[in-house]
């Protein structure tokens, strides 16, 4: 057995109302890939933040290479040899790759020397990257490379990776795994956070499983079935959604030649997108984050105006209509970002119900709000979708992520949409709530609604959609029936030529 690198004993951290970590204990050895497995909200992020010095534990202790280790800040952690790649990258869009790397280092060399070292490391580990490029222009996979190279330049002993594959195509995942194996062969330990079981079985030597902040078990993933790990992670079996047999009706939404220029400096442009959804059908749109998902949703919701003919609802051109008009016609949407986009954080649930339901639920008369009706509608959402909240007067931001997501989806579903577009409907939602949301989407489709589900969770898309397409750099792949698709084909659809290039680079 190799030497113990990091030991965590009885680490506890409480936030008001939640015990994020409850006496967590485990150890990582040199040259090992150690998985930290758990659902969203199980306390994985808090745990690694404590190891990285971003959060101070309430009690418990850590040792690093045998010596007591309690980093007061990330700098101390980095000095000790701990590096971290964040799930939401800590990058600066308007700055160059080299500047971004320099910011993550204690004593960076002059920018010119740094650039050549970046090239060196990127070649050694098979992570092609140009140091002069502006980070905002990079793809999600390339941005992750910036983070990884930033860490590698400090020659860490322990590399923490928080959900690294959620932004990668299957091909890019392979490249990442090769890089990580290379690192472990040099004795670097990797703490790998994920909730994707197959991935962990492929890559990791040991796994520690967290549930509701507690360490509920450990295993050797290669010797454990995905099912066993899932049960440890979730705690109980839950019903997976059933697909009712259904008849497809006529085309409800028809998108032809949809192109939208990127709104901001660093957005993705949509290029010539074609697809059609029929009544009763679920169309799954996959793709790695940042390939035009937000823009597509905005183009469909009416936040972006497009050519009139580019989008047709039941044959009528609606490209020039705004969100309110499209809602009135039955095209409803639920964006990915819950707080600030789908809902106003500081407003009550009733006010948030008015946000999208004012027209269809007739919550206004001559422009004056009918508060009573709005509150009734809110109560209906709360009951039907099991939203845990003290009442309709609660502010949206006081709800947990999963509960708010149920509210947002429920708000659209209860308005009986003709076409419903959702983006990342179960992101950050616990397993039971995710299953409920998927079931609601399927029920809607069974009643004749055309559903478009944009998601980065391939398992989810395979589970609920009839046909599948993938977004890549603002283009949509060919849309194909899900039954006949293999994982390789999906990977190619998601990566397009771009992913292949990397694979051979």
């Amino acid at each position, binding site marked *: 057995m190799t030497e113990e690198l990091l030991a965590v004993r009885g680490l506890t951290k409480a936030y008001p109302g939640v015990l994020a970590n409850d006496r967590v204990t485990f150890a990582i050895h040199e040259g090992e890939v150690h998985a930290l497995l758990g659902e969203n909200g199980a306390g994985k992020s808090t745990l690694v933040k404590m190891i990285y010095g971003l959060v101070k534990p309430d009690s418990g202790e850590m040792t690093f290479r045998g010596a007591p280790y309690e980093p007061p800040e990330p700098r101390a952690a980095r000095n000790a040899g701990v590096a971290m790649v964040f799930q939401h990258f800590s990058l600066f869009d308007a700055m160059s790759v080299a500047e971004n790397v320099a910011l993550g280092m204690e004593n960076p060399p002059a920018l010119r020397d740094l650039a050549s070292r970046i090239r060196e490391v990127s070649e050694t580990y098979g992570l092609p990257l140009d140091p002069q490029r502006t980070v905002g222009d990079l793809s999600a996979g390339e941005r992750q490379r910036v983070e990884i190279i930033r860490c590698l330049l400090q020659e860490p002993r322990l590399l923490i990776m928080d959900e690294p594959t959620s932004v990668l195509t299957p091909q890019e995942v392979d490249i990442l795994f090769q890089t990580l194996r290379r690192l472990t062969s040099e004795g670097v330990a990797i703490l790998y956070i994920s909730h994707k079981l197959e991935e962990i079985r492929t890559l990791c030597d040991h796994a520690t499983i967290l549930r509701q902040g507690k360490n509920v078990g450990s295993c050797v993933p290669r010797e454990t079935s995905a099912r066993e790990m899932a049960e440890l992670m979730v705690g109980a079996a839950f019903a997976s959604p059933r697909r009712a047999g259904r008849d497809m009706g006529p085309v409800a939404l028809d998108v032809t030649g949809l192109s939208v220029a990127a709104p901001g400096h660093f957005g993705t442009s949509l290029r010539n997108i074609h697809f059609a959804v029929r009544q009763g059908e679920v169309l799954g749109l996959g793709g790695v984050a940042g390939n035009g998902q937000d823009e597509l949703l905005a183009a469909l919701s009416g936040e972006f105006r497009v050519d009139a003919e580019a989008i047709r609802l039941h044959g009528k051109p609606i490209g020039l209509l705004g969100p309110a008009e499209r809602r009135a016609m039955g095209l409803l949407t639920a964006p990915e970002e819950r707080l600030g986009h789908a809902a106003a954080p500081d407003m009550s649930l009733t006010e948030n119900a008015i*946000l999208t339901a*004012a027209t269809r639920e007739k919550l206004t008369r001559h422009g004056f709000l009918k508060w009573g009706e709005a509150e009734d509608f809110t109560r209906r959402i709360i009951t039907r979708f099991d939203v845990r909240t003290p009442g309709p007067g609660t502010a949206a931001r006081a709800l947990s992520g999963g509960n708010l997501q149920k509210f947002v989806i429920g708000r659209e579903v209860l308005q009986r949409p003709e076409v419903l577009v959702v983006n990342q409907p179960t992101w950050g939602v616990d397993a039971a709530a995710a299953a409920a949301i998927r079931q609601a989407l399927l029920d809607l489709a069974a009643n004749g609604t055309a559903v478009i589900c944009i998601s980065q969770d391939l398992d989810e898309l395979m589970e609920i959609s009839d046909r599948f397409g993938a977004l890549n750099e603002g283009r949509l792949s060919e849309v194909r029936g899900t039954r006949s698709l293999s994982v390789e084909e999906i990977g190619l659809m998601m990566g397009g030529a771009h992913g292949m290039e990397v694979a051979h680079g």
Partner: protein
Amino acid sequence: MLRLEKRPQPSRLWTWLTPVLAVLITMLAGGALFATLGKDPLEAIATIFWRPLFGEFAFYYRPQLLLKGAPLVLIAIGLSLGFRAGIWNIGAEGQYIVGALAGAGVGLAFYPAESWMIFPLMVLAGAVGGWAWAMIPAVLKLRFGTNEILVSLMLVYVAEQLLAAMALGLMKNPDGHGFPGSRNLRQYESAHNGELISGTGMHWGVVAAFIAVIFAHILLNRHILGYHIRLTGQAPRAARFAGVRPARLVLFCLGTSGALAGLAGLFEVAGPAGQVSIDFNVGYGFTAIIVAFLGRLHPVGILLAGLLMALTYIGGEIAQSNLGLPAAAIQIFQGMLLFFLLAVDLLTNYRIRISSREVA
């Protein structure tokens, strides 16, 4: 060690308590300031806050409260709509001036004809003048994306020069023996904004201010447009998602605040001030910003805040003549009020916790 903790939702209690707390802290700090100026702090505070309301000459000062409060409330109500939506009209002073010029201009153009129609026309012109002046930053923002804060503010300085040009040129009283300033509208029956009930300070501007408070209250709480204004301020992206057109909101908020400021200017110039003169404006447009915030951008709050601020003006004048307190001290006092309000506002959205640092 003190630590901040975000509340799950804004505290209702503190929303109403913070302005009161801010006023109390300002009184303390103001008292300290007056003491360093060599004045008896208690005497000064009493002079400012008590005398005008309950002192010997209260019968004279109480009407003043309405006179000074009305323009503040009228302007602040308009500003509060924009501030709620994240549209920052800082140039109300300019709109106030231009509204006064437009309204007075109409009145002076009719001189010496007498008709009941003149005053309503002046009111209309005042509102249109202020509206038009506010449309400049609005249109530039929509057309070119310029910052409305800077543009509306620059236009204050332009308006002040315009006022000087008018007072010394076009609107100068031809019978004024060369003195700057226009004819006195108080001596022109049809154009005069006089007291409606003698001895109360009640003039048309006061009526307009009350109407504005009620109008704003209904708009914000009962109407979808007011809901959209609040939504845009709190979550602009969610507002676009809801279908709010930001351009229309910019036009509405800047236009309304401009029109109300213009009205305030007209009522002032045709009433209490009486004539277009270089310095008829006394900074109501800026003080109204404090009033809007102090009133928590809430119509009823603004009404109360406007009266309070009017009180500090009147009390300040008394303190100036009775105690020799410098006029600037009152200006500082008003500035401090806004400072402390912004500082204690923290309590509305955050809890302050005392956490003991862990022993290693």
